[in-house]
């Protein structure tokens, strides 16, 4: 799928992705010449088709976490499947962030933690806080997660 700005005859570049949480997806593309933007809106069926493949429209923002596809798509994952992994990597989690993470179901917690860690690492953020988590959710289009 490509988007062409007809006036400029230029291919539009991916700008951002949003997952409102209702199974749909919005991907915004921008013309590099005239800055005109267009949004592609996909219905839940089209969205699911792409996510089943483990790919993200416009490209990956952070590398895939362990079992990301399985953890995102299996409905019957066990809360006892994974033991809590010890903190690793350069990002420090403050108490509020740890508390907030503890509300994430254990089956996907390791995956969510890695996504936040990668987000922080790429931006040189040293301490994870609920504010950073909010920013990551909005920047990475994780609202539905």
């Amino acid at each position, binding site marked *: *799928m*490509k988007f*062409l700005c*007809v006036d400029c*005859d*230029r*291919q539009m*570049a*991916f700008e951002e992705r949003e997952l409102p949480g209702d*199974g749909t997806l919005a991907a915004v593309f921008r013309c590099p010449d005239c800055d005109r933007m267009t949004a592609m809106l996909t219905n*839940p*069926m089209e969205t*699911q*088709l*792409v996510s*089943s*493949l*483990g*790919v*993200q*429209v*416009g*490209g*990956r923002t952070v590398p*895939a*976490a*362990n*079992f*990301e*596809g*399985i953890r*995102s*798509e*299996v*409905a*019957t*994952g*066990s*809360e*006892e*499947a*994974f*033991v809590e*992994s010890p903190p*690793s*990597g350069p990002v420090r989690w403050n108490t509020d962030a740890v508390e907030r993470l503890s509300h994430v179901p254990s*089956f996907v917690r*390791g995956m969510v*933690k*890695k996504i936040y*860690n990668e987000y922080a690492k790429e931006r040189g953020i040293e301490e994870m806080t609920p504010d950073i988590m909010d920013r990551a959710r909005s920047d990475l289009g994780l609202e539905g997660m």
Partner: protein
Amino acid sequence: MTPKIRTYHEVDEIESSLPGQVAEAEGRVGARLASVERIVGVMSGKGGVGKSLMSAAIAASLARAGRRVGLLDADLNGPSAARMLGISAPLREDEACGVEPARSASGVRLMSMALLLDHDAALRWKDPVDAGFVWRGVQEREAVRQFFADVDWGALDVLIVDLPPGTQRLAELHGLVPDLDGAVAVTIPGRASVDAVARSLDLARSRGLPLLGLVENMSGLACDECGALTPLYEAEGGVDLAARFDVELIARLPFDRRLAAAADKGAIDEWLEGGGRLAEEIARIASRVAPGGERP
């Protein structure tokens, strides 16, 4: 008036990232398997022929002989390797290195859907639009891909892949793992199983996959007293199949109540420990799956 619009192939300023993402994900399988010496699929045409028990027993037999063995249970909807090997521990993971495989007492490294689900829970996928049939195949293939790529298998002498029943399964595995070293087929003597395995073997041949051999399971019932075999089937399916495809019939195994009971209890290791003729036969099959001597 609308100007003439260039076609999809004429518009090539920016490469679509989707094929690249798929290629990158597949590439991670290859990278992970670089430290695995051999990858062997265990297949059957139909369910219920004892393929999973064979896979688990072969893996345990090799591990007991000092080999570094992985067992990837690709039967997502009927996973049984964890039960047979007595494994239920939760999984550890490292963000960078991957998910640690679970380990059996003999040291078999295992990944199975059973380890991710509650006991007795069926594998169900999120299905927001009630059309799961459209992408079920893709999700399952992706899950198996992650079992290869996201698991910290480490250095292995052999990774055994217990395939779900079905004619196409080996071909699908070959698509995911082009470096597949071969396959062992398990059948029972009955015609229905033999026909299904024949189709699998035909497909494997057409892809140029080396067939390491055939195992005929449930050939007979062994007498507890004297060991004499009473055939369970009139047909000699394994013998016919081996001749037809010119593959070696590695073994014809009796149904063994003690092995079946051990598998139910997760005690295959203890059963192998007990030795006996059947354990020797399994060791012989294992030596075809992973030739080579004991690791010092």
